[in-house]
């Protein structure tokens, strides 16, 4: 029998707000355990939550970037369970009235993967099991988290992986999260089932929780699919359950029975007032939304004639794209080439490219592109100037003029000098001897150690002779 795989993903993404969702503690990753806590995120008796407006707006921004409907009225609910990672024995979340409804992403195959909704909630603390003891770090408790609940529209591990990458790039681009799976700011639960090809009904699903890398997601799905097919083909029955994933072995194992699962006893959080958004609020956030990476890549191909792969690379990181956009106004192909060859070689990790913390800004980069575009700098010279900029953060003009770093040349100055030093050649040229110009060009090229762009030298010499 041929089997069809059905996958739905629940993706948790921590929002990069300055403070936690209900208190003023910071949200920075790392730090000494329990150094970033207060009575509110520790759930001490009598504390009250104060909903972070930025967390609401970030969730809405992500929703808008994913094409969701934005609820004008929503509220928070309490989701109850006893586990030491949750200081109040309930997680403040959204169950009845989430902020964002619907939405979708489109895979490269053209298939649309629907979202059910996106809701806002708080992250939990972290349990560390150590030599028979369990230690708890609440630094992460109360960091705002959005959960993107996908419909079971995915059909393979490869699709699931592409879907996650799309979510990651769209949410990052929207500027609301760094989406780092390795740091836990993006995590994923997968729901997997199989059914006979052509069947309309869903098979019994299993849920694999807390996957924190693309590889784990793919492995967990592949393992579950073959495990479930094996169970069914040997006449067995898939049990609806939560399974854990062991990254070392690449296998999943039963954790607990979903049929006897926790009853979360959801009810509306009475300490947090209704979240109301006006049309104007939503429009403000919509208009602040940056272009999506996909739209941007298309534009780069159409407007500047970049190759699709170059366009995709440049548009992947929002800060890189914004940096490129400024210089592309001068010369798109030069700007793209400098970024993709020179700068990406220096800024090589994903994280560094996302952060794009250079010592110089887009305006300085544009200036360099302009100097190259005008022929003042050769491409090789430009790359040497760029190296100096990366190192010192100084402007290309100052590097060229004052330091001459990288063999940069001032063509006009060299031409003026050559004319002054060779009055005979000038006279010969003015008398009609074309070859005399070649000896002047030769003198300039010699003085610039071969770095001056020859066409530029020629026209500069002609201008200088006219003015002479």
């Amino acid at each position, binding site marked *: 029998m041929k089997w069809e795989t059905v996958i739905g993903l629940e993706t948790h993404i921590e929002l990069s707000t300055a403070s936690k969702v209900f208190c003023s503690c910071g949200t920075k990753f790392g730090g000494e355990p329990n150094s970033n806590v207060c*009575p509110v995120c*520790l*759930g*001490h*008796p*009598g*504390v*009250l*939550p*104060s*909903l972070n407006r930025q967390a609401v707006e970030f969730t809405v921004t992500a929703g808008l970037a994913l094409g969701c409907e934005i609820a004008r009225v929503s509220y928070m609910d*309490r989701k*109850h369970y*006893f*586990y*030491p990672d949750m*200081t*109040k*024995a*309930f997680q403040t979340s959204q169950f009845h009235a989430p902020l964002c409804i619907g939405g979708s992403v489109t895979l490269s195959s053209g298939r649309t993967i629907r979202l059910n909704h996106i809701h806002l909630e708080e992250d939990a603390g972290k349990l560390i099991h150590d030599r028979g003891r*369990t230690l*708890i770090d609440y630094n992460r408790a109360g960091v705002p988290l959005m959960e993107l609940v996908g419909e079971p529209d995915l059909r393979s591990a490869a699709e699931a992986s592409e879907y996650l990458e799309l979510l990651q790039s769209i949410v990052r681009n929207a500027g609301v999260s760094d989406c780092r799976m390795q740091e836990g700011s993006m995590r994923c639960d997968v729901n997997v089932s199989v059914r006979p090809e052509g069947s309309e009904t869903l098979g019994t699903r299993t849920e694999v929780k807390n996957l924190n890398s693309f590889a784990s997601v793919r492995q967990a799905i592949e393992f579950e699919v073959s495990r479930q097919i094996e169970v069914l083909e040997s006449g067995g029955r898939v049990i609806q359950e939560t399974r854990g994933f062991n990254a070392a072995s690449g296998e999943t194992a039963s954790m607990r029975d979903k049929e006897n699962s926790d*009853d979360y*006893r*959801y*009810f509306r959080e*009475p*300490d*947090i*007032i209704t979240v109301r958004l006006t049309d104007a609020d939503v429009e403000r956030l919509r208009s602040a939304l940056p272009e999506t990476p996909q739209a941007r890549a298309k534009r780069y191909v159409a407007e500047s004639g970049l190759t699709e792969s170059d366009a995709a690379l440049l548009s992947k990181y929002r800060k890189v794209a914004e940096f490129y956009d400024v210089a592309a106004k001068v010369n798109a192909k030069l700007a793209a080439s400098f970024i993709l060859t020179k700068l990406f070689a220096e800024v090589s990790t994903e994280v560094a490219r996302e952060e794009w913390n250079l010592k110089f800004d887009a305006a300085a980069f544009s200036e360099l592109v302009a100097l190259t575009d005008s022929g003042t700098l050769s491409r090789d010279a430009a790359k040497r100037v760029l190296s100096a900029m990366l190192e010192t953060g100084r402007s290309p003009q100052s590097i060229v003029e004052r330091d001459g770093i990288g063999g940069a040349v001032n063509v006009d100055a060299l031409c003026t000098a050559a004319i002054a030093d060779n009055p005979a050649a000038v006279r010969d040229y003015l008398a009609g001897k074309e070859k005399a110009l070649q000896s002047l060009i030769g003198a300039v090229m010699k003085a610039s150690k071969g770095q001056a762009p020859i066409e530029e030298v020629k026209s500069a010499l002609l201008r200088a002779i006219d003015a002479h």
Partner: protein
Amino acid sequence: MARIANIQRMLTSGECTCRELTLRYLAAIDSANADLAAYISVTRETALATADAVDAKLRRGERLAPLEGVPFSLKDNISTRGLETSCASNMLAGYKPAYDAFTWELLKARNAVLLGKANMDEFAMGSTCETSRIGGAKNPHNIGYVSGGSSGGSASSVAANLAAYSLGSDTGGSVRQPAAFCGLLGLKPTYGAVSRRGLIAFASSLDQIGILAEDSDDARAVFQVIAKPDALDMTSRTLPNLAPELNRTIGVASEFFTGVSPDVEQAVRNAIDTFERLGYEIVPVEFPLLRYVLPTYYILACAEASSNLGRYDGIRYGFASDMYDDIDDGISRVRSEGFGAEVKRRIMLGTYVLSSGYFDAYYKKAQDLRHAIKRQIEDNVFGRCGMLLTPTVPTNALKIGANLSPVEIYGTDICTVTANIAELPAVSVPCGNDSAGLPIGVQLIGSAFSDAALLDAAADFERATDREFVANLDMGVRV
């Protein structure tokens, strides 16, 4: 009358220093508290340090701020940084909060002299104060009777002159009922008028910090200080008008008089006559949904309590257990041993009404009823009247150890819970005595944010009756 004004006059005139006055209160507590159990802990050092600061200020010739230098008590569920706040529960015995409740911050900033934490029913669940881990606070009018609950210690401390006033909390009548039993004025403000930050939650949508005082003048002085907006309590609301005009039309609904003891009925009828003599217009109104207020209240309150009290697991603070097999076993041991019977009863009720399969039948219905009750009060009462007058408690004062069943006990809240369900302000004023000589209260429920107008009506009533019903007790510090 007007203890707060008297104390501030004594301090300003130099009749006594704040330290002397505070020492007199502390001595009175030392001698009376063994019998009354009004205080669960006494904050002697804090009180004296504050008193010295007040005396220094007076020596510099500075004027006193409102409530400055006036000794008071705080219910044991209002958080005081570094000072035990146990909710009268073994679960929190020895627990010292890391932060101050907003109301305590406001009072501390004015050098109000905190004498100690007042006894209460465990986690404010009870109507007699008897669920406290140290046993109930007694009624100073007759120590064979309960002080009421849950703010029993607050009422006992003020009635016995062991505090000038007290802050309690009122989720279903916990300020007004003990005020009625102990012959005091009890104010439950409009929901949101006073910040709940630092009040250890019982039922968040119903809880409100309230005031127990000798009379309306004192209650007004305290209310003006604590009714401040708090940016960190999202349900805190600014009073639209600090001195709303008093609408002198009083609605009386017959439903509130069924099942009321003859003593209470007589005293409350007399109060109605008094208001009529004062020129108030008495209008009959109907409130047929009254028969649903208790089930509505107990479903909502228990549901929220089961959620709010989930955090007591012994892991981070409070009662802990060393002997357990695994984390689930540890948490259930802590909760089985740390909570008393009434708290566990309500947690179980609340867990039940929220569980899947029962949610719609109980919690959702109760929410729907809450909206209907609010609407009916709005339409039937405040469409025509400024206030609704009812008995505060349908029964005479309760004897200690009467061992009523939970349902009988819950029934005594019938008149008070409506104000919590509808988020309205309500005040209880002494209006008579029962056959055993214990005080009876009459309740006025106002429209939202008419708190000050309710105190105006209470003041009219006090002037007309001269508080003749309340025996002057020869104990504590008379000021």
